[in-house]
């Protein structure tokens, strides 16, 4: 069966909106996420699958959410 197209649309949008919101190059988000992951995993145990960076219009805010057990 063909995969649904919504996850692709949402992924593309996520990168697009971040690029637009902080006015950076398209690959900046990928790089930033990677580096943030490296930094945070030095101090906190995180897994790649559950690591996510959100960029919004609001003032800078860093939220670290633990994994559900």
């Amino acid at each position, binding site marked *: 069966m063909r995969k*649904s197209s*919504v996850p692709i*649309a949402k992924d*593309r*949008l996520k990168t*697009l*909106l971040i690029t*637009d919101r902080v006015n950076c190059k398209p690959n900046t988000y990928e790089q930033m996420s990677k580096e943030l992951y490296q930094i945070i995993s030095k101090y906190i145990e995180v897994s790649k699958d559950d690591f996510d960076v959100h960029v919004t*219009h609001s003032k800078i805010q860093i939220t670290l959410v633990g994994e559900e057990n």
Partner: protein
Amino acid sequence: MGEVIVITSGKGGVGKTTTTANIGAGLAQMGKKIIVIDTDLGLRNLDVVMGLENRIVYNLVDVIEGNCRLKQALIQDKRYSDLYLLPSAQTKDKTAIAPEQMKKLTDELKSDYDYIILDCPAGIEQGFQNAIAGADRALIVTTPEVSAIRDADRIIGLLKDARIMQLDLIINRIRLDMVRRGDMMSVEDVTEILSVPLIGAIPDDEHIVIATNQGEAVSGSSYMAGQAYDNICKRITGMEVPFMDLDPDTGFLAKLSRIFKKN
């Protein structure tokens, strides 16, 4: 004291003008006194969607330049006597009006109308700046497509920069059959991405095309899109209305029509 609402989207073709016409008619139907203003200079459309294109004598630019009095340019709606249209100019370019002039006009209109509704042109240039200049609040129209949502996000940023704080989202042309099979972003998906409160979702309803062909509004009708517009109008006035089920097969209206069909 009236409220100035700008209807905007960034991207063209997502349904701003149709939304303006239907919200104008819906609010008028609720007994409000309404003026809708087409601010798209050079590409006049709202008159056509409302079926009033044959009655235009003067336009927005004439009013602002003082070539006529406001009353002379206003066109009364065919169905609702408290709904008026101020049409745009077809020949002038978008630099014919400045944001300050637009703000002065909408400020003056606040004493005579409950709602002043501005149909904003696509884009983020001067036409957009004119349309938002005097706005108290904005309704952002988008469709569940990547390009439309991206443009809506830019517009939201610009509206916030312009200190327009009350922003509400309208998601247009939702097709529940496609959402269900995972090929269209859902109302929840879009609302979450844009993080602006949802004021209504409009199903992709062929009755909108039919009504627009005839120069009429669907609001006030029993069609799904009509009900969705009516709900948006109620929420604009501050009423709390539950969000409707847009599924044509399980929705309230479908159930109702099935009951009638049986008899």
